[in-house]
């Protein structure tokens, strides 16, 4: 039997597109976990929340889901800022009590998921947009628009985020806050305010990632759990604080997952991310681009 080269190339392309989407999903974790050291395991729940908001608006007004997610960015930012204030006042202020902080976010994850189940039920929901059913064909390679659009916008979003973090004063302060809070205070910057902004941004990315998710696949409230392992695998592999590292790791994981799904069957795909994570933690905890 000939090796199915076309299948291989298509799987790799699908993987790259998937990876672009994973990068958007992980960007928030790279900020909250990588930079701020807040283990926000509830992030996937906020992504699902974003997806449902896109769904409601799309169903009632027929708005484009991704456009909707950009419009609700400020709301998600406020949500993130609020959560950080609670987190800071209850846990971070009293020193390193990681145990309770983790339990707090675990509780948030759980409550969000159960509330979504109570409101929407466990049926799969999907959105309508003109580009969802179309596919661009280049030779034998398929580029489905429902994957391509999220991938491109996701990379644009991460590019903008990277520019913000490296070029603006606030962005640089966010990068600095994890390294030396005292130095930041000496520059007359309030580290808590900076962290609040950063966490708000992290949660805001979840809104867009949620819209991408519902464009790519139908969702129900508990699909978020599948992403917990993925996002942390990508984040750790990408070297925690670096957005470019996150993108590379996301694309790598996307390709491997897509190849696994194509050649061994989709039921094995979830284990790939976690296998990745365990191997990375065991052998290269600093990540690909880590020092």
């Amino acid at each position, binding site marked *: 039997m000939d090796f199915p080269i076309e299948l291989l190339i298509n799987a790799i392309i699908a993987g790259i597109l998937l990876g672009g989407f994973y990068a958007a999903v992980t960007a928030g974790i790279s900020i909250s976990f990588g930079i701020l050291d807040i283990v926000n*395991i509830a992030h996937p729940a906020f992504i699902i929340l974003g997806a449902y908001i896109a769904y409601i608006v799309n169903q009632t007004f027929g708005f484009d889901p991704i456009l909707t997610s950009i419009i609700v960015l400020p709301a998600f930012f406020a949500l993130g800022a609020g959560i950080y204030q609670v987190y800071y006042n209850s846990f971070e202020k009293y020193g390193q009590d990681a145990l309770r902080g983790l339990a*707090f976010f675990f509780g948030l994850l*759980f409550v969000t998921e159960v509330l979504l189940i109570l409101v929407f039920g466990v049926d799969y929901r999907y959105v309508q947009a003109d580009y969802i059913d179309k596919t661009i064909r280049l030779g034998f390679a398929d580029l489905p628009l429902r994957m391509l659009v999220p991938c491109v916008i996701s990379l644009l979003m991460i590019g903008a985020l990277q520019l913000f973090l490296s070029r603006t004063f606030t962005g640089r302060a966010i990068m600095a806050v994890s390294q030396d809070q005292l130095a930041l205070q000496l520059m007359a910057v309030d580290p808590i305010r900076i962290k609040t902004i950063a966490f708000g941004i992290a949660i805001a990315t979840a809104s867009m990632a949620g819209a991408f998710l519902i464009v790519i696949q139908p969702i129900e409230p508990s699909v978020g759990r599948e992403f917990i392992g993925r996002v942390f*695998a990508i984040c750790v592999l990408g070297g925690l604080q670096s957005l470019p590292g996150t993108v590379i790791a996301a694309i790598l994981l996307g390709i491997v997952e897509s190849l696994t799904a194509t050649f061994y069957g989709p039921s094995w795909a979830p284990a790939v991310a976690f296998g990745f994570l365990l191997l990375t933690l065991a052998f290269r905890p600093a990540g690909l681009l880590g020092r």
Partner: protein
Amino acid sequence: MRNPIFFIIAAAVGASVFLIARLIGNDYLFFAGYTVLQFIVLATAWNILGGYCGYVNFGSAAFFAVGAYSTVALHKLGTNIDRYASEALAPLLKAAMPFSIPTLTIIAGIVAGLIGFGMGYLTLRLRGAFFAIATLALAVVLQTLIVNWDYVGGSRGAYIIRPQEVPIIGSYIQYLFLLMIALAVIALTAARVIERSRLGYGFATIRDDELAAEACGVPTLKLKLIATTISGGLMGMAGASFPYYIGYLEPSSAFGLAYAVNSIAMPMIGGTTMWAGPLIGALLLGIIQQVATVTISSAVNLLIVGLLLIGFVIMAPNGIVGMVRDFLRVAAPERVDLRAVKLLTIAGYCFLVGLGGVVFGLSAAMAAKNSALTSLGTFTIVLSMVYLAAAYGLLKIESWSPYLTKSVLAVSIPLSILFIWLDPSNFNVVALTISIVIDLIVIWLLQDREIKQLYQPITQRRAVS
């Protein structure tokens, strides 16, 4: 109390629980009790690593499922020995099989313990958060493996046909219940022994400051590995008899998120630094969930668990045990006196009424057909919140709390009368009359001069003494 004496008392309590349950003789009681006991074991096991060492394990469900699936695998092996074993081995295995549940429990414990050890070995050298994330990962990896493993049923699930009767005890569910009691007694004793041994002090140093402990020569990695192994093993043991209990095991039920969240929430709510914490948390949450599952729905009971977890983590970071301990430190520094006992009882009563009210109010609000019932349910929930606040204030010795307690009790007396009038069934009349009597007694107790003195604002308290 010495450890052997503790074990004997625990065993005696366990035995009397079993005897009382038999006297009542309702099969449902055994089914519900089994679940609660299973959560006691899971919560205690989680606490050995999470509470004593401070390492969060999100993968309780994975260890639990490993235990359950090791039983399934051995059960299948037992029924098809000739197909899998070589001719020389077959008669030998046949003599040993089918394994009894205690044997299966021990095997499950060993398998899950080994997985815990391997897991810890891979990740425990890193920061604590990585361990937590890796345990989440482990759950999904194992679930994928089980889903793709046809021998134990894959995603179709596996049937285990349990015998109807067992000798001496009678019905099978009672046998399982008894085994679970035994396991809970063993787990609690183990937790208490560890807590007061060299090992436990070592764990506590890791929890408080791992770097300093390491610098002082505490073999932290070794201790952490011991903790993950014991904790994982106990969780596996809790799962071993589950297939016989449920009769049909499929991956998504064995790996259910409910196990993960409960085994974290229960110790967190009860208190993580003491063996009694997980026990209290498991009894409380376990019973609430049984009630809520019957009266409302399983989704809502998980919501209650999640909200309680968040609430406790923010308001009472040391759980119920920690709150009581802090209260006694202020209210009765030398020895526990009558006043402290009275106040603890009142606070406990308010807390239980508040929790029960939330569950009841939710069930009324969700099931209601008309807006009157919905608003009644909502009102009950609000009132219950005030009860919870009163209990919180009493334990925290806030000066406003006696007034709040008295007024909330005073409000609920006419409400109880209203309910009796609305639905004069026998149960309602008895229960609500008892609650009115208790309310009156509590209001009378709170008039006590000594109690008033305790709740005076701090500035005035100094002036009096």
